[in-house]
């Protein structure tokens, strides 16, 4: 009798497997805009690839972007942009990571420092402008992933740092505003920055004479601390400043500070798995209802019932002996 019922139940579940419509189920998806620093310091080769060869920060970031795109669940979206100096350029608004992966792959592979339309690098301003860009109609609701090494050239005057309170004001819910992730690219040790000629051939590295080592823009914050301060002719002093601005490392402290100001998270890029974990943080989840087909589950129940009907550990003879009439 039990087996008859389980057979009928199995048939019922098979019917379900045949005709069950897709059911709405909540899934976790992520919507990101990847914004990549394409200034010169990103050419520093301080990462190594799988074979131990040196690869640049730019190449490393591109590989990480693709690895992350593959690791995000289908239905997630990624947009792409690059920035140099103070302004970001959006290449496309977010596209789906599974269906449009070929396009993502082709365009990420083509990202290049030669796309840069100007050569300076002002990370703080660029971050501000990117966050402002994120408020535009085609991007609103997406989280920013900002790939940079934090190296600014020429060094900036902190006095003219942007004020993020305007962007914070634009948020609907300012208190749980989580704008995204800053990814620090590069190692902590300083490395030489490659120098290229007009044809794109490397012609050595930047030397200490090639770059300014301190900010000369605008007015100093506290003139009394500038050595040799002359109000008109030498607002930044008259001494020659020589530093290590021709070498580059990841400015982690600076980026952490920026992340704090903009309520973003910070992650230092080391391996793809780490980045993908940082991006799957609970704060970035976009919960969506996606129709999910559960037909296979019904089929599985039917199989289990069949297995019960036919399981071989049944006693050979009926257990209960009936009285003989």
């Amino acid at each position, binding site marked *: *009798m039990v*087996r*008859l019922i389980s*057979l*009928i139940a*199995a*048939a019922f579940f*098979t*019917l379900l*497997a*045949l005709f069950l419509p897709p059911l709405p189920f909540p899934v976790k998806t992520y919507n990101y805009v990847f914004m990549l620093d394409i200034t010169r310091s990103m050419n520093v080769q301080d990462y190594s690839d799988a074979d131990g060869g040196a690869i640049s920060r730019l190449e490393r970031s591109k590989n990480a972007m693709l690895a992350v795109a593959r690791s995000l669940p289908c239905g997630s979206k990624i*947009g792409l*942009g*690059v920035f140099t100096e103070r*302004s970001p*350029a*959006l*290449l*496309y*608004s*977010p*596209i*789906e990571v599974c*269906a*449009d992966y*070929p*396009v*993502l792959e*082709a*365009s990420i592979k*083509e*990202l*290049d420092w*030669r*796309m*840069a*339309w*100007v050569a300076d690098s002002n990370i703080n301003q660029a971050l501000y402008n990117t966050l402002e*860009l994120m408020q*535009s*109609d*085609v*991007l609103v609701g997406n989280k920013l992933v900002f790939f940079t090494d934090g190296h600014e050239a020429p060094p900036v005057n902190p006095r003219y740092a942007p004020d993020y309170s305007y962007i914070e004001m634009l948020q609907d819910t300012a208190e749980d505003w989580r704008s995204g992730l800053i990814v620090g690219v590069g190692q902590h040790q300083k490395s030489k920055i490659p120098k290229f000629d007009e044809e794109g051939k490397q012609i050595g590295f930047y030397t200490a004479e090639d770059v300014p080592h301190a900010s000369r823009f605008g007015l100093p914050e506290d003139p009394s601390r500038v050595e040799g301060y002359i109000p008109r002719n030498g607002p930044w002093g008259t001494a020659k400043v020589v530093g290590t601005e021709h070498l580059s490392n990841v400015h982690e402290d600076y980026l952490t500070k920026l992340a704090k100001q903009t309520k973003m998270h910070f992650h230092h890029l080391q391996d793809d798995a780490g980045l993908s974990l940082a991006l799957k943080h609970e704060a970035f989840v976009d919960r969506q209802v996606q129709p999910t087909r559960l*037909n*296979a589950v019904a*089929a*599985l129940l*039917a*199989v289990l019932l*069949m*297995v019960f*009907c*036919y*399981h*071989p550990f*049944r006693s*050979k*003879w*009926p257990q209960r002996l*009936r009285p003989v009439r």
Partner: protein
Amino acid sequence: MNLAFSHPWLLLLLPLCLLPLASSLFERRAAASIPLVMLSPVTIWLHRLILASAIISIASLIIGMAGLHILEQTVSRTGNGAHIVFVLDRSASMNETFGGKTPDENEQSKAQAARRLLSEFVSNRPHDLLGVAGFSTQPFYVSPLTEHKSAIQAAINSMETPGLAFTNVAKGLGMGLSYFKDQPHTGSRVIVLVSDGAASLDHRAQKTLREWFERYRVSLYWFFLRTENGLGIYSEPGSPQDDNPRVMPERHLHKFFNTLSVPYHAYEVDTVESLQDSIAELDELESLPLIYEEKIPRQPLSVWLYSIALLGLLLLIAVKLLEKRS
């Protein structure tokens, strides 16, 4: 026909379908004497039928769960369409209106108007292969020639974001032309240059562009979004001294495009309506027969498998109902 499984590991359950060989669906009964139960060919075949339907039911349920399907296939078809690369100007002036002002609530900027109309164009052309390149001072590789319309729409969306620096037409066109490098030549090939300015091309750039247009046989459409009272493609120089590429880059770029050996159409657009008309003309002109690949999505076979399982189960239920109950 190419078959594949979406969850092949579920096939590990397949040995379960041999269970009916080891056990029976029915209660074992003692009979007083063997000759009472006649073994006839009919009963033997009935027994085999019941066994087979049990085995087949379990097996087809498991194979159905594993997601047996016919792989996605591509079929070459002929339709009307083109391979189109949009070369989009991302310079800062694109964010102004045709009147040269910052747009207010009721007006559209040039970039917004172009974005809306191009995006309509893209969704009306099902068979086209589309690509997008952008440029300001430097060219950007945005999206390769692809059939992914959603990605192209996303790339066109980027026109709405703030523009960058200057207009370097030559590099943008070079980037656009490079997309055709490894493409099979079928249907028409088109570059649609959308810009609101021009720049003088040096001799080197002119030579390269001329060569590439010839090599890849790409026809050129130039949608010149002219600002009111600004210089246009057809502006006449006031004096002979002014007739040089520095003063009138648009006129001279147009002259250069006219010397190309490929079909060239210029549209000077100074209102949203005229932009719409010129896009409609592009739609009409570039509809040559084209061989395109149509994707037939994968077809799941689980419906058939579950149906077989259901049939087998119904038979087993019928037999089980007939079993003598004591």
